[in-house]
C-alpha cells in the first residue's frame, strides 16, 4: 500500500511531535528531578558538614572554657599578689612589713625599672616586671631569713641583684645589704 504524500507528511510531523514531547518530558521531568535530587543531596551533605563544624566549634569552645577556667583561677590567684594601687607605695609598705618581722629596717627604697627582663619574660603579655631596690643592715642569718620568707611566701617576687658587704663602718658581724627585687605587675 503506497502512502500518499500528505499522509507521509502527517506521519513525519506526528513523529516529530511525539519525540519532542517525550524528550521534553524526560528532560524537564526526570533530569530536572534528578538534578534537584543531586543538588539536595549535596546541600544535605554540606549542611551536615556545617552542623558537624558548628558542633565541634561549640564543643571546642566549651572545652576551651573549661581549660581556661583552670588557667584563669591560677592567674587570679597570682594577680592577687601583684601590686595594688601605686606600685612604689605598695612595695615600700610590703617590704617594710616583711623586714619588720625579721627586725630589720628598710632604707633608700626606690623603684628601678627592669625593661630588658620584662620583654624577655612577658613578651606580648599583660604583665611587666617592676624592680624595687632598697637597703638594710643585718646579720647573715637575718638576711637569709628575710630572703627565705620572700622566696617561700611571695611567688611573684625574685631577688634580681644582691650585694652583701660586711662591716661597712659598723661591727663586722653586721652586713649592709643592697637588694634589688623584681615583682610581676599587671598594671600598665
Amino acid at each position, binding site marked *: 500500500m503506497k502512502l500518499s504524500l500528505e499522509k507521509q507528511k502527517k506521519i513525519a510531523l506526528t513523529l516529530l511531535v*511525539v519525540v519532542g514531547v517525550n524528550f521534553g518530558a524526560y528532560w524537564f521531568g526526570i533530569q530536572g*528531578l534528578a538534578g534537584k535530587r543531586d543538588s539536595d543531596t549535596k546541600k544535605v551533605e554540606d549542611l551536615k558538614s556545617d552542623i558537624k563544624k558548628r558542633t565541634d566549634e561549640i564543643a571546642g569552645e566549651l572545652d576551651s572554657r573549661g581549660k581556661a577556667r583552670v588557667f584563669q583561677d591560677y*592567674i587570679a590567684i597570682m594577680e592577687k599578689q601583684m601590686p595594688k594601687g601605686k606600685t612604689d607605695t605598695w612595695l615600700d609598705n610590703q617590704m617594710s612589713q616583711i623586714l619588720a618581722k625579721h627586725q630589720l629596717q628598710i632604707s633608700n627604697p626606690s623603684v628601678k625599672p627592669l625593661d630588658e627582663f620584662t620583654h624577655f619574660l612577658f613578651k606580648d603579655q599583660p604583665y611587666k616586671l617592676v624592680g624595687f631596690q632598697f637597703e638594710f643592715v643585718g646579720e647573715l642569718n637575718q638576711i637569709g631569713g628575710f630572703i627565705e620568707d620572700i622566696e617561700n611566701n611571695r611567688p611573684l617576687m625574685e631577688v634580681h641583684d644582691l650585694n652583701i658587704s660586711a662591716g661597712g663602718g659598723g661591727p663586722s658581724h653586721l652586713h649592709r645589704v643592697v637588694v634589688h627585687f623584681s615583682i610581676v605587675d599587671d598594671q600598665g
Partner: protein
Amino acid sequence: MFQINLFYEQQEIQRAKDYDPVRLMIVGGALILLGIGLWAALLYFKMGGLRDDLAQNDAELKKKEKEKADLGQLTDLSKIQGQEMSLRKRIENRVFFATQLDILREIIPTNCQIKSLKVVRAIVVTKESKEIEDKKDPSKKVKVETEKSVPSLDMVVVLFTRGKARLNILQTRDSLEDLFHRNQRLSAWLRQVSNEDASANWNDVTRASQNIFEPKGGGPFEAEFTFKMSFAQKN
C-alpha cells in the same frame, strides 16, 4: 466452491484505520509519556526523605548557629594559656638565694668570713647561624641567623681569713676550693637553677683573685679570696 469476500474493501479500510501509523505513534508516545510521568512521580516520592532531611538539617544548623552565637565571644585559650604559662614559668624558674646563702654558711669554715657577696643578672644573647634548604630551590642552601637569649647569673663571693703563717692561708684557700667543688648541696642547687646544657661541671666555681696581706706589727696574715660562679639560668 469459491468463497467471495464481498467486504474486502471495507475490511481493508478498517485495517488501514486500525494500523494507522499516526495513531500508533500517538498511542506509543502517550504510553512513553505515561512511563516518564510514573518515573518522575516515583523519583519525586523517593525525594521526600531527602526534602525532610534538608529541612531537618537546615533547622539543626540554625539551632547550632544560635547556640554558638549564645556562647558570646569565643575564648582565646592560647592567650590565656600563654599568660598562665609565663607566670608559672617565672615562678618555677626562680633562683632561690636563701638556699644559696644557707649553702655558703654551711660551706665556709669558721676561720673565714664573707666580706661581700654580689649577685648580678644579665641576659646573654648568642647568635647561631645554620644552613637550611632553600624553599625556592631545594638544591641550594641558605644561611639563617637565629638569636638565642638566656638569662645568666654571676655570683661573686669575697672571703676574708686570717692565719698565723702564709701556709695556713694557702691551706684555707685550697680547702675552700675543694669545698666548693665537692659540695653536694651546691651541686643540687646549681642543677635546679641552671640551664640544662649550661655546664658539664656543675660546681664550676673559679677563684677569680687572691690577696694575701703581710702581717703588720707581729699580727696574723690576712687574705681575701674572690670566688666566682657564673651560669646560664633556666628560662
